[in-house]
């Protein structure tokens, strides 16, 4: 149980800056997920926290105490690695007890702690086995068990589920969430999978190119992404973007035209945008529907149709070759090659200005 505070944390590797001044505070008992595309710095940030990498500048505080000068083991953290990193020549018991052995705990204490953790993770039967005699899911549990026995203030997970098959991943996702409730401790979890992030997190940290783009609760990120990147990253299938420009700006009342011809009017703060400014309109696939109800209309030719029964995905290409995808709840009888008209309601859209930042509609 601990609070964590990052202040202006930067990291460069041989002159290349990979983390640019990260500021973040994590509450006690929170489940925080770092998410972003590969190479965005999320794993590096986790390693900086763990102490496996040294900061280039900035401070890290855990429970109000500065820790960035401490070696990994003295920060009170435990980490679960992507490849599990179980010691192959040791049994499950030895793997789980290694940290305690290094810390010179008594035999009884080690026994008690390992058995308690094994109980939680249903590993009791497997304590005498070597890692190579375990399945992927069991190895994963041992890796978590190794973290639990240390009774850490914070658990760090580095893409722990990416080596598991899809079914097991869903199961482990639920188990981890339950574990979090059971252990009542702070957990930080790195993944590139936004579904994992959305389902597990209390708080999501979206990263790109070493910058923290947005921090917030999953639905907050979904409903109010601060910029075009977060909007495109969170949500599956990804949001559709339509380019366009402002054609008239008058005291906070604007008129815009998309490159595909759709026109719309909106209000926002005066002076935010000027005529001729480039804009992006983001529409989620579920907000783009094949009917005439919406205010904005786009015609597209279906390039692929996926009819799954309960839902239908249609991939469309607009007259100016913009690709878009619609998500329709229920079945939709559309053939590939067919031309259909889709519409959207402006209220459910997201508008991004020339700097790709979110612009709130005003009434």
């Amino acid at each position, binding site marked *: 149980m601990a609070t964590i505070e990052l202040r202006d944390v930067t990291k460069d590797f041989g002159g290349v800056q990979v983390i640019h001044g990260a500021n973040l505070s994590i509450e006690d008992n929170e489940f925080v997920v770092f998410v972003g595309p590969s190479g965005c710095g999320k794993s590096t940030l986790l390693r900086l926290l763990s102490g*496996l990498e040294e900061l280039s500048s900035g401070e890290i505080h855990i429970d109000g105490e500065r820790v960035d000068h401490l070696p990994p083991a003295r920060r009170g953290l*435990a980490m679960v690695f992507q490849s599990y990193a179980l010691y192959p020549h040791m049994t499950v018991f030895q793997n789980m007890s290694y940290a305690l052995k*290094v810390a010179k705990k008594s035999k009884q204490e080690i026994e008690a702690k390992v058995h308690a953790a094994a109980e939680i993770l249903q590993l009791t039967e497997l304590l005498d086995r070597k890692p190579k005699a375990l399945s992927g899911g069991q190895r994963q549990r041992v890796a978590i068990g190794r973290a639990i026995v*240390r009774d850490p203030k914070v658990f760090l997970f580095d893409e722990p589920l990416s080596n598991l098959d899809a079914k097991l991943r869903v199961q482990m996702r639920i188990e981890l969430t339950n574990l979090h409730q059971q252990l009542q401790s702070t957990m930080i979890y790195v993944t590139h999978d936004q579904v994992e992030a959305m389902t597990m997190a209390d708080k999501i940290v979206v990263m790109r190119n070493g910058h923290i783009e947005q921090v917030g609760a999953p639905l907050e990120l979904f409903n109010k992404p601060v910029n075009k990147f977060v909007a495109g990253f969170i949500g599956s299938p990804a949001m559709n973007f339509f380019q366009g420009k402002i054609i008239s700006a008058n005291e906070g009342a604007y008129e815009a035209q998309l490159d595909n011809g759709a026109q719309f009017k909106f209000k926002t703060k005066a002076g935010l945008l000027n005529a001729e400014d480039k804009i992006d309109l983001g529409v989620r696939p579920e907000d783009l529907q094949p009917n005439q109800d919406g205010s904005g209309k786009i015609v597209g030719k279906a390039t692929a149709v996926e009819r799954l029964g309960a839902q239908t995905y249609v991939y469309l290409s607009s007259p100016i070759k913009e690709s878009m995808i619609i998500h329709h709840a229920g079945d939709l009888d559309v053939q590939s090659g067919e031309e259909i008209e889709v519409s959207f309601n402006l209220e459910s859209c997201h508008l991004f200005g020339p700097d790709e930042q979110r612009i709130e509609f005003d009434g």
Partner: protein
Amino acid sequence: MSTMNKKSGDLGTWLMHIFLGVNAVIMLYPIIMMALSSFKTNKEIFSSPFSLPQSFSLDNFAVIWNETNVPRYFINSTIVTGLSVLVLLVVGTMAAYALSRYKFKGNIMISLFFLSGLMLPLRLAIIPLFIQLKTLGLVDNLLGLICIYTAMSLPATVFIMTGFLRSLPSELEDSARMDGASEFRIMVEIMVPLITPAMVIAGIYNAVPIWNDFFFPLIFIQSPEWKTLAQGLTAFFGEYSINYGVLYAGLTLAALPIMLVFIVQSRRFIAGMTAGAIK
């Protein structure tokens, strides 16, 4: 290749087996001859060199045990080979560990320095080496041989071990660091146990030439009590007569330990040879 393995009846497989079988016979024949001859008398060796011995009498071995210095040479060779390989594995593994697991300035230079040792034959430096050992008072001393052998075998050992150590995932190291283990402890308890196949390879690879070496003892050892086995066996080559039966018995004894080590460790040796290729 996989198709060749599957069809055991096809021509390629047969040819391969015949080739390997002939090769094995050629390799084993001298060894078997040596072992068989060690049971024969000198007269028998000349009268019927290719037949089986008339009786498996241990007379020749008794002569070796009772009348020659061979047991003493045996002990000397064991000490020299054993200690050389031990020091070699400890020092070589530590050097390879530092070179393969840590980034530091001069890392590549030191690696290349070790590699250069593979290219230079040590015998070229025999005169300066002799002067050096003489100054250190290590001539006619087993310790001198141990120093030379360790130095001589270090490049190959570092080369083999670095390859293996590089292949270990760094997450293991990170994990042990999170567990609070010191760098030394990580090496000894986590990493080194995982490269025992490599240590077996490096050990056997270096033990064989050290055990069989004739050149360095010939130059550095004079006293009969410090002679090694390969060197000591030359005592049987008399000026006028050679007792072949006893010589063969001595050679058989000399070859035995390495063969035993190899047979016991061969599974690991082969596993280690291929381990690097797969992962």
